[in-house]
């Protein structure tokens, strides 16, 4: 709740603070972003458990203490036109969980995975104002998940994709973004801070 309130105040205050900035109209932008929810669909849902009477559901170890970091990403963009840019986004998140024997409830091991994705992206701005814009975009690339599952080292590579149906940007050279993001890397609201060179 505190984070949400802070975010609202920050976004509300940003247009006033950036009005004093000179408008350099630069073509290169770099932003750092954070998304709340990891979309753990790219490599399958590892924690899916169903109350069913097959041997796997009875004997597979139980998973507990599943922790995900937010999805952190860095994005660089280059404006080809005033309303259209191409760029590259690199995203990272980490997940850990613990396994427990399904019968005795004893701790049997843990799993730790990192996910790194690299996605070329495009963005279209359909409403451009002095300190405000609305945009949409998409990113498609590759993702690598690696880590340790029990005693086994794991590494898996698959396609990574994200869609940005709608997002807003507030500010000029220093700006903040608030996007609705969906795909197989992150899902939900993404907040970012960027700088226009």
């Amino acid at each position: 709740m505190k984070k949400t309130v802070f975010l609202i105040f920050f976004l509300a205050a940003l247009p006033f603070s950036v009005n004093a900035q000179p408008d350099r109209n630069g073509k290169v932008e770099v932003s750092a972003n954070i998304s709340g929810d990891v979309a753990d669909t790219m490599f399958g849902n590892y924690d899916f458990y169903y109350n069913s009477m097959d041997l796997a559901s009875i004997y597979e170890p139980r998973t507990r203490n599943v922790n995900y970091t937010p999805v952190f990403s860095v994005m660089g963009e280059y404006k080809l036109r005033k309303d259209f840019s191409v760029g590259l986004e690199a995203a990272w998140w980490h997940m850990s969980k613990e396994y427990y024997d399904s019968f005795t409830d004893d701790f049997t091991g843990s799993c730790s995975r990192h996910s790194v994705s690299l996605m070329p992206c495009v963005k279209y701005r359909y409403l451009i104002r002095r300190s405000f814009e609305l945009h949409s975009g998409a990113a498609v690339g590759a993702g690598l998940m690696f880590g340790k599952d029990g005693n086994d080292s794991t590494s898996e590579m698959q396609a990574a994709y994200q869609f940005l149906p709608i997002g807003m940007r507030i500010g000029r050279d220093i700006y903040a973004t608030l996007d609705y993001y969906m795909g197989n890397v992150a899902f939900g609201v993404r907040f970012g801070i960027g700088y226009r060179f």
Partner: protein
Amino acid sequence: MKRILFAIIISASLCACKKESSFYYDSEFTGTYSYNSTAGCNYLMAVATELLVDNLRAMENALEFNSFGSVSNSRTSAYHSNGKDLWTPGAEWEVTAVTAIKGVKISKDSADSTWTLTRSGDYGINGNIYPTEYSITLRMHKGAGYHYDWEVSGNGTRTENKGYGCRFWTDGPVNYVVGVSGYNWSGAFGTIWMEVNCYDETVDKAFLRFNGSTSDYRYMRGL
């Protein structure tokens, strides 16, 4: 006096603990011993009271068809026979209806009241359908009501997802006895074993032992 007070306090504490624990059930928590022990037992119980009992029904229905005298080479709606009376050695019948038991082959090798039932195909346990093979021998006893009593012995295998599979077998015959109502086999004696494998590695061995009825049993795992 102090000792009495001490005893009272200890007793009260123990009662309080006991009372509190009665408010909690293992089923409320995931991954508890109780839950999966129950699930493991239910699985083996399904083998005993669904898979094996389905074959008892297939056998009894075949005997009923046989009693109609329709055992010529004709294909009935539910069975296909080699033309021999089911009580005659060399008789071979096959179930041609009902998904769960379709393909069950009934053969009679000797002159006594014993038949061998084999099947290789998908079988559903609680809606989970996986390839299941088995070969069981049924020996008929007198019975009561609408069913016969049966002695069942045999073994089978089942292959499931994520590398899991199991082997089940009887340790001596398991007796299915018709219950008081005469409509089902609620009486049971005998032991069914199961070995669970995951990618050819044994992960568990368990048994279900009936002590007189299908509701009076003992399940043990981790053997």
